[in-house]
């Protein structure tokens, strides 16, 4: 019968199929975990000089970032686009 060789073939790739499925699943998991949430910190420009007082000047785009608040909730600057203007205050903090 035509389907007999196919049945024999599938019996032999049992282990390989399992490995293949696990590999595909791992890649899918990795892909979704890396694109799921924005990384903490600035969205770009990590190698720029930390001292450049005129870098973010009037008229330029405010560099995007994601940071956690004191309850661990993530806040992304660009999430307020087309919704609210933002007053972004950098302060020295506890001393």
């Amino acid at each position, binding site marked *: 019968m035509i389907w007999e060789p196919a049945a024999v073939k599938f019996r032999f790739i049992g282990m390989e199929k399992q490995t293949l499925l696990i590999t595909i699943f791992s890649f899918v998991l990795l892909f979704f975990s890396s694109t799921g949430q924005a990384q903490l910190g600035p969205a770009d420009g990590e190698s720029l000089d930390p001292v450049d007082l005129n870098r973010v000047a009037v008229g330029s785009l405010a560099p995007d970032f994601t940071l956690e608040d004191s309850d661990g909730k993530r806040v992304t600057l660009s999430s307020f686009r087309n919704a609210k203007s933002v007053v972004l205050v*950098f302060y020295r903090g506890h001393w």
Partner: protein
Amino acid sequence: MQILAVSIDSPQDSKRFIRQLADNYPGEFDFPLLQDRQHRVIDRYGILNPRSPGWPHPATYVVDRNGRVRWRFVETNYRVRASNEQILNALRQLP
């Protein structure tokens, strides 16, 4: 309008700061204190105070709904701050 405050404070220090503010200024405290522990966002904005353990120079940016800086106040003398009037005036200019 959304206020975002950024410092290198720990969540514990931020929570303590929130309690102090709530005691001294009763009323709804409704903006997040964001944790920039390794001052990576501070660095991205170019406002790191190099003679500090990672503090920013005090800086305030008014960002419009397109993500553009429309007004800013950056001062290396920590005793000189933007007044609320100045910030409100800047906000009033926004469409």
